[in-house]
């Protein structure tokens, strides 16, 4: 990947120019589908855009010192990381990429939640600190399963290169891994039943409690971009290998959309779990599957 293609992927497709409208669209799909499932009409199509513009026009409370600077910085880092993660997704059939870009993608996907943890603590609000502590506990729980699932997929295909992973034929390992990733996604995106860090009304808004105006707009945007990146990762791993670029792009978007609908249905159908139940769920129930997946992947690798 040379500099120009890298910039084109980051800025145009599937990077910022595509990802920001896609992020708003996915946020709208989530709210609208939850509303439809609850028998409501739901927000209009442009709602996330209106919210974003309105938040940009609001004032922020004056903040001084390093703490204030950090509070401005965290949402920007989160947006940059999430947008770069989207830019790394191999949507084109021969879009380049490099050895080990899966590891970079995982790191970039993890950065927004690190920023949320840091943001909650640097806001010095008691609710922010509770939310950050919850986010940290949640992140330790689901990341073990998430990373093991991805490593098992990579190990079964003998590569850490995203494009190669997307092109190889699917194995049974692949589907177990994907299932494990899907189980982790609600926690990664902070939606029900794992909406603990930003538990609305319960601890105000968790780490976001003290954020206002443009900073909050950036958090909303980074949340939307996380949706695009996480569902895009699943779509990349699940999509069949296609040579025509426009068919590949359509399949990618359709699969991402299906994942968003699935996650929204789960969010609408469930209530928030307590933090101990969540941690127990990941460490006791799903870890077994992740360990099974990775051990069988290593076993198959030795046999072949």
């Amino acid at each position, binding site marked *: 990947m040379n500099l120009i293609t890298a910039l084109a992927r980051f800025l145009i497709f599937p990077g910022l120019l595509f990802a920001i409208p896609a992020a708003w669209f996915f946020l709208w799909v989530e*709210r609208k589908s939850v*509303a439809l499932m*609850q*028998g*409501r*009409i*739901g*927000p*209009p199509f*442009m*709602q996330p*855009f*209106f*919210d974003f*513009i*309105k938040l*940009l*026009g*609001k*004032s*922020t*409370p004056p903040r001084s010192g390093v703490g204030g600077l950090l509070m401005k910085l965290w949402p920007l880092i989160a947006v940059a990381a999430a947008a770069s993660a989207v830019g790394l997704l191999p949507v084109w059939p021969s879009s380049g990429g490099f050895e080990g870009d899966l590891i970079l993608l995982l790191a970039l996907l993890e950065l927004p939640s690190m920023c949320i943890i840091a943001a909650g603590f640097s806001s010095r609000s008691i*609710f922010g600190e509770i939310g950050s502590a919850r986010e940290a506990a949640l992140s330790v729980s689901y990341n073990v399963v998430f990373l093991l699932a991805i490593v098992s997929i990579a190990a079964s295909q003998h590569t850490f290169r995203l494009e190669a992973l997307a092109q190889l034929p699917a194995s049974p390992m692949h589907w177990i891994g994907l299932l494990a990733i899907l189980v982790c996604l609600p926690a990664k995106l902070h939606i029900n039943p794992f909406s603990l860090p930003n538990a*609305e*009304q*319960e*601890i*105000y*808004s968790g780490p*976001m*409690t*003290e*954020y*206002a*105006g443009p900073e*909050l707009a950036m958090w909303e945007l980074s949340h939307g971009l996380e949706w695009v990146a996480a569902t895009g990762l699943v779509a990349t791993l699940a999509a069949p290998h296609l040579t025509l670029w426009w068919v590949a792009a359509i399949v990618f978007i359709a699969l991402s959309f299906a994942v968003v609908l699935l996650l929204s249905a789960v969010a609408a159908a469930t209530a928030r779990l307590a933090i101990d139940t969540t941690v127990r769920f990941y460490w006791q129930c799903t870890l077994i599957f992740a360990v099974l997946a990775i051990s069988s992947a290593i076993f198959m690798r030795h046999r072949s």
Partner: protein
Amino acid sequence: MCYSRRRSPWLFHMNGGSCNGCDIELIASLTPRYDAEQLGVRLEGSPRHADILCITGPVTHNAVNAIKTVYGQVCGPKAVVAIGSYPATTNVFIDSRTLDGPLNLHLPVDVFVPGCPPRPDAIIQGVAKAAAILAERAAKKLPANPVVMPLVGPPCNGACCAPTNKETTEVQS
């Protein structure tokens, strides 16, 4: 920007010593039957995120400082909606020694939604009006000028509605 402000009012709900009737009606306006989310209304957990402060209750001594603090925490441009007859007039508790009401002694109220409690559709109408006022004021930098919403729906079978409306107008005039 003006249009976005009108289409995306985020609420923060504050109880200033209310009997919980208006609070229930405010929540009812978000339920499937009334579905205020069609107008972009979202009930926010933190006053920092909100545009419109919805206050219920007759503003008791204990609540008055909290209300002022929360009003200060809402970032501008902002609007205040007084829900029910209590924040407008203190209603049946008028001249009580435990009250510091009505609300407009302490905050610049933009919209009064009368009723005891008001119907959810009246609350939605009031919030939409407040969002329009907020957008217009932010665009033209106008001073606060309170509006009294008309009663919506059939009157509640009792003496509360008619005098409430009259008292509210009196407070305004």
